């Protein structure tokens, strides 16, 4: 209980920190002046970090036949949070900007060119508020603020024409041209910036905080489980049926079919399925039954062979292990389904296990299994296939139960501890969802930005 209070307190502290940082960001928010004259004064403070800020003096320009609007200021600066291969051009929406107006950005090695056109876009596009990953701000919560209307254009330059990337540490000069009805007008100043690489992506600070917080919570509960191994874990009824199914197969003298899902080892649900396979193999070895594991992925195959072998060895029956019972079928989805259905029809296994990730073939597998009268136990995080499993299997481990299953079966305190940590994170998320829903309902939208993951 004491630890629960401690954890809750630390979550509240983090929440307060996040809220404070958002409040700070609101205070330092860029207020853009409406009048061009005011922009000239407010510009330098407002656009901190930009290499060059230049005010416009429209009177000094020669007036063309068609009045081409120009923005009141333009800034060019290093692209933040990148590997040093980009610069960014920002400018305020020009007075009298229409859909017909086009902006063209050109880059040159010197202030006098030669110029290479690197992009052209209509005045209705490329808004700062819509920019995502490379948005030039210091912290993630300053980016793409919810509810802010489009009034600043942003254009990112990462390549010269012909896909030549920008070089780190080299100064690039930028020219902005506005075009309307065939008339062009250059922004009066040539601006420059130098791409520099960064070593910390400030745009992902919130992700880092939450990841560290969650990781630490899981590790804390694992450490706690080491001290006090008597942790309570809710009963997962599907797993109680595992023994029953293996027992029944032994009585009937029929094999047990175990599938690890359709995904590769890079998918964590496959790892969870393999973890359960280890426990099942041990019990099968104890009961002296036969276990068949057809695989779809060659790497999963080799790991599954090792796991079953270890399971038989742990049960003291290494001689009963037959590598041929764990075999590769095919990588093709429906050919695999057809082959497994063939095995079910020919061998008539008494128990079928469907663990891991499945796609459209799920129902084909389970319906065929059901028609042979086997006990069927499924465990998947494939949410779209869950209805099919629930309908056709005797027991289904839904979503995270698949991941909890290996901990449940092993009863190992360290692994069980991580489940507790996971539950705490879930409590945190539930609280945040409730707070967020309430705040958003009453028009307080900054909470949305706090959890925004950019890039």
């Amino acid at each position, binding site marked *: 209980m004491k630890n629960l209070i401690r954890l809750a307190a630390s979550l509240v502290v983090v929440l307060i920190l996040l809220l404070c940082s958002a409040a700070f960001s609101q205070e330092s928010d860029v207020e853009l002046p409406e009048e061009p004259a005011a922009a000239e004064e407010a510009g330098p403070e407002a656009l901190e970090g930009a290499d060059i800020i230049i005010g416009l003096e429209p009177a000094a320009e020669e007036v063309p036949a068609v009045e081409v609007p120009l923005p009141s200021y333009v800034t060019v600066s290093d692209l933040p949070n*990148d590997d040093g291969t980009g610069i960014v051009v920002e400018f305020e929406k020009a007075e009298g900007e229409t859909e017909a107006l086009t902006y063209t950005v050109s880059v040159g090695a010197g202030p006098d060119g030669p110029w290479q056109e690197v992009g052209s876009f209509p005045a209705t596009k490329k808004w700062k508020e819509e920019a995502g990953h490379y948005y030039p701000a210091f912290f993630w919560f300053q980016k793409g603020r919810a509810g802010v209307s489009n009034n600043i254009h942003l254009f990112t330059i990462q390549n010269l024409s012909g896909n030549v990337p920008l070089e780190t540490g080299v100064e690039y000069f930028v020219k902005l041209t506005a075009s309307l009805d065939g008339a062009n007008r250059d922004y009066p100043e040539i601006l420059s910036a130098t791409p520099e690489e960064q070593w910390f*992506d400030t745009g992902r600070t919130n992700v*880092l905080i939450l990841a560290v917080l969650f990781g630490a919570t899981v590790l804390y509960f*694992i450490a706690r489980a080491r001290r006090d191994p008597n942790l309570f874990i809710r009963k997962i009824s599907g797993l109680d049926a595992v023994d029953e199914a293996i027992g029944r197969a032994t009585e009937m003298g029929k094999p047990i079919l175990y599938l690890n899902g359709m995904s590769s080892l890079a998918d964590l649900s496959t790892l969870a399925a393999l973890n359960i396979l280890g426990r099942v193999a041990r019990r099968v070895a104890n009961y002296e039954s036969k276990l068949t594991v057809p*695989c779809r992925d*060659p790497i999963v195959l080799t*790991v599954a062979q090792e796991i079953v072998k*270890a399971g038989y060895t742990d049960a003291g029956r290494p001689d009963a292990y037959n590598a041929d019972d764990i075999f590769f079928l095919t990588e093709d989805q429906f050919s695999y389904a057809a082959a497994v259905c063939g095995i079910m029809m020919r061998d008539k296994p008494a128990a079928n296990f469907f663990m891991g990730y499945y796609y459209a073939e799920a129902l084909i597998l389970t319906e065929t299994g059901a028609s042979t009268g086997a006990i069927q136990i499924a465990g998947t995080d494939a949410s779209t296939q869950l209805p099919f499993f629930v309908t056709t299997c005797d027991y289904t481990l839904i979503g995270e139960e698949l991941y909890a299953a290996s901990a449940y079966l092993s009863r190992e305190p360290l692994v069980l501890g*991580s489940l507790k940590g996971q539950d705490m*994170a879930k409590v945190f998320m539930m609280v945040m969802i409730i707070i967020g829903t309430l705040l958003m309902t009453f028009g307080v939208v900054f909470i949305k930005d706090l959890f925004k993951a950019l890039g």
Partner: protein
Amino acid sequence: MQFLRKQFPVMLAFVMGMAMFIREFVPSKFSEQLYYGFTDWAIVIVGFSAVFAILSLLHHHMNKVRRRVEGYGYSVITILAFIQMIILGLIFSVRPGTPAGWEYQWLFVPMQATMFATLAFFIASAAFRAFRARTWEALALLLAGLIVMIGRVPIGEFISPHLSTFSDWIMNNPSMAGFRGIILGVALAQIAISVRIIFGIERTYMGGGD
């Protein structure tokens, strides 16, 4: 040997796991090179893993043929199909118009489509047998299912335009809420299992027991 089987993989998982985690927050050139370098390795390793698959497949079926187990004829067909596809592919490539391309278009495509099509029959039979309103919750699910099923095809639109609106509402609200709940739970569980793997608490995947 024990070190290579037990400690070394755990150390490797820890170092690589942490490196990839830190890399997520480092946008520098070195970090990018590391990332793309590893992805290149992974592509090569995955490519080589096909060799395991081929060996396992051939071994499994040849054993069946050698032992003359029941239905070994299928294994003979598998081996022959495998060998002829490799030979034809190597000689003529697998593009449309080649012999392998012909096999693809006129044997493989119809067989695959047939397998997928069985889904329609299985859905009908499974729904008929299992979709029963035994409780009030099941009744709610049944009604929602029926509305979505009919509301998402033209006949629903034909019966009443409100059916498709209501079906969309069900998909975008109650159904989505359920999906999100499962997705969030799964995501948290995946992070927890990742932490366990990185810190060497979960080692079953190495095949060496606990």
